[in-house]
């Protein structure tokens, strides 16, 4: 999988997650130097680019779909990325963000912004995306090609998956990672 200058273009972003999966990506340490020769990160919290290009070879999503903004990002990634990868438990199964699902959204907001607040409690409405009633994994809203579970997936697991994809093979992440790893 590659385009143009023989480098695989990669876009990443985080939805409702803790950014730990992106930190684990950075934990590939010196292997990042070799990877940089083979991939071009065109959009990501790691780089400065502010817009997602029209066509990307590999899209990597961390985090679950919890708000309007997450939903928009997931759909945009699906539309523009040839291969879409769910990175980490939140993207793969909802994980911790989805633990609010058994409760009504109003009760969750009330608990977070009123009951547990001492000073000037108020529910934020401006400049923040609307929360969805149910938190879903990424494949609950768009088709996903590769699933890499783990909280977070180890750097070794991310490295294995990326090198397999760059080589044009389909990785089997169950060999190297699991839910909660």
């Amino acid at each position, binding site marked *: 999988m590659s385009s143009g200058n023989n480098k695989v273009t990669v876009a990443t972003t985080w939805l409702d997650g803790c950014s730990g999966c992106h930190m684990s990506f950075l934990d590939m340490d010196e292997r990042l130097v070799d990877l940089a020769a083979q991939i071009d990160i065109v959009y990501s919290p790691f780089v400065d680019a502010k817009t997602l290009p029209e066509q990307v070879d590999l899209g990597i999503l961390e985090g679950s779909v919890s708000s309007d903004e997450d939903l928009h990002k997931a759909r945009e990634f699906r539309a523009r990325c040839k291969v879409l990868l769910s990175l980490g438990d939140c993207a793969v199964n909802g994980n*911790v963000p989805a633990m609010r699902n058994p409760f009504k959204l109003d009760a969750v907001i009330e608990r977070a912004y009123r009951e547990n607040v001492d000073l000037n409690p108020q529910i934020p409405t401006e400049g923040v995306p609307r929360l969805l009633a149910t938190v879903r994994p990424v494949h609950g809203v768009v088709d996903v090609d590769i699933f890499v579970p783990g909280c977070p997936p180890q750097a070794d697991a991310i490295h294995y998956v990326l090198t397999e994809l760059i080589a044009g093979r389909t990785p089997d992440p169950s060999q190297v990672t699991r839910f909660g790893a």
Partner: protein
Amino acid sequence: MPIRAQQPDVSVVTLTIDGQDLSARADETIIEVCRENKIPIPSLCWMDGLSVVGACRLCVVEVDGGPRLQAACATRVREGMSVQTNTDKLQRYRRTLVELLFAERNHVCAVCVSNGHCELQWLAQTCGVDHVRMPYRNTGYNVDSSHEMFRIDHNRCVLCTRCVRVCDEIEGAHTWDVMGRGSGCQVVTDLAKPWGESDSCTSCGKCVQVCPTGALVKQGTSVGEMVKDQQFLSILARRRSSR
């Protein structure tokens, strides 16, 4: 009811499992022969030393090429039997079964006391469950922390009934039982009294040790700290049956 015969049948049968020629005692089940011969079959409700319920269906195998899948824990070996334990069809069924368990209740491994020591988590990995295809039910269940030493989190329970059987058959207390049907099905202590108020519980902790997930745990454990020791069970069970 225990499937094992009281008087061991010492006659020997020969059979093939995955093309391997094997011999076994006639009173053994397919899963026992597989375990002895290091042939991996996933299982959840089956446990060496407890009676057989055949509830989880994870150990299903194909017998003599027939279309009907049979639970390896509840099927005795027969002379000339031919068993397949790992066909594409079986892998597909097992994967779906594990996914349904994950979709039914809350199994967030990352924040579970049994993370890293959980049979369900391990099964998901070995059955290739890297995501769950069906929608999650997102229903909350109770947590009973009333017992001074142990805790039950029904959100993590897979209804294997190992706790019910070990309490009845090995400890002899029968504190645990099952109530309700379908998604409302739950294990209960003493006619659904809080565990801490149970008159029959001896606080032996056998139920906690045999529980495959983070449903039955020791109080005071944090994420990944609940390591279970199941060695006692086969030893106790053997001493019981030789009495």
